[in-house]
């Protein structure tokens, strides 16, 4: 795998390879010394144009458990008009000998532009690009679902027949986009629930069904309910009349959470707006995988970094699964 830019073009076998490797990585975390020497001497750069402490820390922990050197490069504030261009930054990081660049950027396609350029030779991991994709989030979500559904016999399995409901601001969500492609590639059936204002205009090519009622979706007893974060700036832009109305219609409140089946899991990419898209009780219930998602994030990112940095076909060192990309949302 040369780059990980999107889940749109990730094949099923590639995705399962990552999830299986993440299982191995998770076992490392359980050891007394939770560290592998796999990427000793390699340099991984976290290039973050947006604040996202949780995603950065997750990638940082993943890299360190693989014994890589980590450079955190916060480019926030160096907006393209005022500061250094992506090109200059990339060339700088290239000159520093980066083996992989983990990029978080507010512009859709930024990771793709970086990977397609000849500015830097390093592998590129998209850690969220604008409203396009956030592939490692989807991978950790898939991993979390697989673990809950298949338990210890998860290795090699997809998510065939698993019914997932994704609720909320799909329009602006890179998490939703990456999950739609990945979960359906793995065999899950994805249903989207949102007000029309928060749906992309054309979903004809998306492997999903679409509805507008969370109550109806819950009546169908889904296996997974994934709540998306509502960004503060959407509230002032007439996507819906008022947060209270949003919470009433599309929030996972206590009553709705109580109607979920015993094995149904509740997911949220975080950070959560408790009381808006999800109630505190729902977020903290045994159904909730919010904290598992965080832990699994490290394992999945270890797997991704390992595959990228050790890819053959680059002078960096594993297999050339082609990951052409497109790409994410705020989390």
């Amino acid at each position, binding site marked *: 795998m040369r780059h990980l830019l999107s889940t*749109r073009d990730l094949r099923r076998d590639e995705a399962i390879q990552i999830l299986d490797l993440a299982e191995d990585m998770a076992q490392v975390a359980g050891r007394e010394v939770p560290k592998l020497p796999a990427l000793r001497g390699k340099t991984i750069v976290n290039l973050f144009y947006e604040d996202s402490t949780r995603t950065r820390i997750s990638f940082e922990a993943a890299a360190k458990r693989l014994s890589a050197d980590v450079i955190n490069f916060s480019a926030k504030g160096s907006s*393209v*008009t005022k500061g250094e*261009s*992506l*090109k200059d930054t990339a060339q700088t990081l290239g000159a520093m000998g980066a083996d992989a660049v983990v990029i978080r*950027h*507010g*512009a*859709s*396609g*930024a990771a*793709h*532009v970086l990977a*397609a*350029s000849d500015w830097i030779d390093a592998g590129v991991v998209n850690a969220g*690009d*604008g*409203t*396009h*994709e956030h592939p490692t989030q989807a991978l950790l979500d898939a991993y979390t679902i697989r673990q809950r559904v298949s338990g210890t016999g998860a290795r090699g399995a997809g998510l065939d027949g698993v019914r997932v409901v994704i609720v909320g601001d799909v329009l602006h969500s*890179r998490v939703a*986009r990456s999950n739609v492609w990945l979960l359906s590639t793995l065999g899950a059936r994805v249903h989207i629930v949102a007000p029309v204002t928060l749906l*992309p*205009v*054309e*979903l*004809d*090519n*998306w492997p999903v069904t679409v509805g507008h009622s969370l109550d109806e979706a819950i009546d169908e007893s889904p296996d997974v309910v994934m709540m998306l974060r509502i960004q503060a700036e959407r509230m002032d832009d007439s996507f819906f009349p008022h947060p209270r109305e949003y919470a009433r219609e599309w929030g996972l409140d206590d009553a709705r959470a109580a109607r979920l089946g015993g094995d149904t899991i509740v997911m949220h990419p975080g950070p959560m707006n408790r009381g808006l898209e999800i109630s505190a009780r729902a977020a903290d219930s045994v159904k909730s995988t919010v904290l598992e998602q965080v832990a699994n994030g490290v394992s999945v990112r270890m797997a991704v970094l390992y595959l990228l940095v050790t890819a053959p076909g680059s002078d960096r060192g594993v297999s050339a699964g082609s990951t052409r990309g*497109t*790409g*994410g949302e705020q989390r």
Partner: protein
Amino acid sequence: MTTTLLVRGATLVDGSTADILVADGRIVEIGAKLGHLNARSIDAAGLVALPGLVDLHTHLREPGFEQAETVLTGTRAAAAGGFTAVHAMANTLPVADTAGVVEQVHALGARAGYATVRPIGAVTRGLEGAQLAEIGAMASSRAAVRVFSDDGKCISDALIMRRALEYVTTFGGVIAQHAQEPRLTDGAQMNEGSVSSELGLKGWPAVAEEAIIARDVLLAHHVGARLHVCHVSTAGSVDLIRWAKKRGIAVTAEVTPHHLVLTDELARSYDARFKVNPPLRSSDDVQALREGLADGTIDIVATDHAPHPLESKEAEWEAAAFGMVGLESALSVVQASVVDTGLLDWADVARVLSSAPAAIGQLAGYEDGIVVGALANFVLWDPLTSRSFATSDLRGRSTNSPYLGHSLPGRVVATVHDGYPTVLDGELVDAETVAQSARAAQGAPIFASTQENHRG
């Protein structure tokens, strides 16, 4: 001191073959086996002679953005593409909203000599859409402005648009509208549709163009004014303009070469060379635009040549500038999209790229094409070759072409502007020679002098 040219064996747009004799800036004879003792001879066997191309929508960037283009470099690009006249958009710095700026641009064009430069005046002061610019002063200036546009921005205020339509009528002018409802396109990055939905790029919906066109044709009808619609890009816009013309509303419309051939699928690369405003649309829109051009709903092809320096395009899509260069590739793209597909013949091309844009811009001398007595503005085009389009085919200052690396049909062999060559043997004539020829031509008698000795 002026040039005498003898073009041998050119194919005219009616399909006939003829020699063309040029003297003192004019076409003095067309016929078989012409001869002349001192004429410079151009072998045009197999070449189509088209009247000089006229672009109604060119961004020359000077004054203010000379790192992207200048009047000189932009008109060199024009000549290389077979153009002999360009209309320079007003979104310069300072904005072309006063007589001073339009006269400066006009004079720079005359001095360079590669093409006639007709400045377009801003409709509103500073392109801010609030108060009318000095339309009368620009109209009566030495630049004699007849086309007014806030291009780059839409005149979105309905009352300002009404006033502008009415006021330019006083001076025989026309408003060229960049139709883009601003609220519906706030932060828009590409065509709104299935591709934008996948890519997470903010959509620029067709309705934002169509709503303004619908409003403006009704306004033009109401006040009895002429309206020109820039760069029509959607099937719905073609329908609206067809409807308006049927009702007798005085509307004309242009389409760019790139909207005749490229689609929003290209945005999947996130390569900002494909970022343009209005955005590349769907293949259904492309087809409707071709048909609209073929049936006369769309009057002209205009390039919207929009040069940008490298750093404005080597960036994330959202950070990159809108626009493509188009002068050098326009005729090739028109040939590929509508001539080679059988929708237009060369006489139609002469209309949509020369006489019709000249008529909208009220540029004299292009009414009848290549005829005896007309100013000698023409291009010799080889339609049978093809070229892999490369930066070496670009003669302006910027290289933001969407066609680099693609095979395009046809090639300009020669361009003749006001009787002197600006391109010969496919190469630009050097700037000094062209400037000298321009000075001589501008000093030459205005009316065709039929010299006794032109027949050898």
